[in-house]
């Protein structure tokens, strides 16, 4: 039986797709057979971030409608063993996501995969609801910014009332915070909410803090999950977060302004 994770936020543009790509890749790198599913029907983007956009033949909706077999729609990552992408449809709308259809596909994937990662669309409508309904674990992607924090709280409410686990009175979906686009320098200047502020308000455990990083744009430009950029802070922060998700005890990095290294201090002195 596989574990189902939803990457969700309520708000759009906070880093769900970036985080889904990074997380799925990180789980696969650690040897878990992982599939990442794009639930953003009509606005397909995970394929671009994963760099497989040219290879999409069939999609999630084709499989739900019985127009293609699951194994025909799954795209095997060319770089990483154990990593698969299930792209969504670019032409249909969210009504194509029926609960029965989604369940059927997830059940079939469950036989084969260790982790199923669902990349939620923004909002709290059908696509978002379907992506979280069957989840065992929720990763709440939040930016240190007022509207994002509020929307995250709203999604926590939805998870607690409208997920399968809630409806069937099972053990609740686990909820962890992934604070992304964090800028320690602005935090220090008092211009941005601190990690602790957000934690206090949302009151869920902290999975990781992903710094604002230029590496993210560079990675999406070339279609490579940023976690593979092992020299970037964002990549390392995602790696740590995956480790924590798997139960490892890893200290948080990149939450305070980076000390100027010896090299740059020397440079400055000589300049």
């Amino acid at each position: 039986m596989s574990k189902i994770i939803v990457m969700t936020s309520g708000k759009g543009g906070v880093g769900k797709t970036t985080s889904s790509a990074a997380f799925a890749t990180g789980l696969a790198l650690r040897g878990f057979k992982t599939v990442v599913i794009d639930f953003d029907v009509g606005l397909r983007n995970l394929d671009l971030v994963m760099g497989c956009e040219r290879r999409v033949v069939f999609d999630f909706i084709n499989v739900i409608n019985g127009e293609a077999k699951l194994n025909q729609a799954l795209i095997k990552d060319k770089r990483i063993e154990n990593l698969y992408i299930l792209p969504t449809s670019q032409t249909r709308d969210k009504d194509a996501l029926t609960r029965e259809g989604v369940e059927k596909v997830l059940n079939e994937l469950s036989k084969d995969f260790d982790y199923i990662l669902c990349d939620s669309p923004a909002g709290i409508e059908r696509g978002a609801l379907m992506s979280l309904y069957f989840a065992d674990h929720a990763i709440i992607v939040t930016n240190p910014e007022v509207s994002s924090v509020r929307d995250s709280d709203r999604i926590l409410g939805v998870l607690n009332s409208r997920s399968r686990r809630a409806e069937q009175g099972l053990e609740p979906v686990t909820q962890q915070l992934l604070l992304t686009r964090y800028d320690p320098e602005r935090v220090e200047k008092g211009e941005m909410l601190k990690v602790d502020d957000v934690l206090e308000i949302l009151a869920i455990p902290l999975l990781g803090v992903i710094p604002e990083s230029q590496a993210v744009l560079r990675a999406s430009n070339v279609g490579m999950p940023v976690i593979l950029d092992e020299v970037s802070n964002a990549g390392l922060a995602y790696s740590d977060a995956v480790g924590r998700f798997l139960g490892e005890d890893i200290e948080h990095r990149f939450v305070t302004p980076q000390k100027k290294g010896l090299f740059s201090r020397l440079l400055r002195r000589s300049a």
Partner: protein
Amino acid sequence: MSIFNFFRATPRASAVQAKERLQIVMAHERAGRSGPDYLPMLQQELLAVIAKYVNIDENKVEVKLDRGGDCSTLEVNIELPAREQAKAAAAAKATEKPAGNDVGAAKRPAGGAVGNGGAKKRI
């Protein structure tokens, strides 16, 4: 090539790659926007034709696509059964199927959903 190289030392800047990738994928999307998505139907009809001659397992059909700027390649891999079986199957099918090229009428294996998907598109 290490990942480090991939990010730092590629000959083309990442923004150039971004533009090229977008141009390719969006050209295909815009072209496809007018008509129906033909791939599910194409696959289904292709399989129906082949199924007239050999037994095929739908789970052993692999469809790969690589969209390029100038041309795209569609690769369909169908695992055929052993030769003897194939002959026998072909003979059997030939007698049980009406003649003609009505691929839509070809018998589908279990799970008629595939047929429905194609039929919907034909309208």
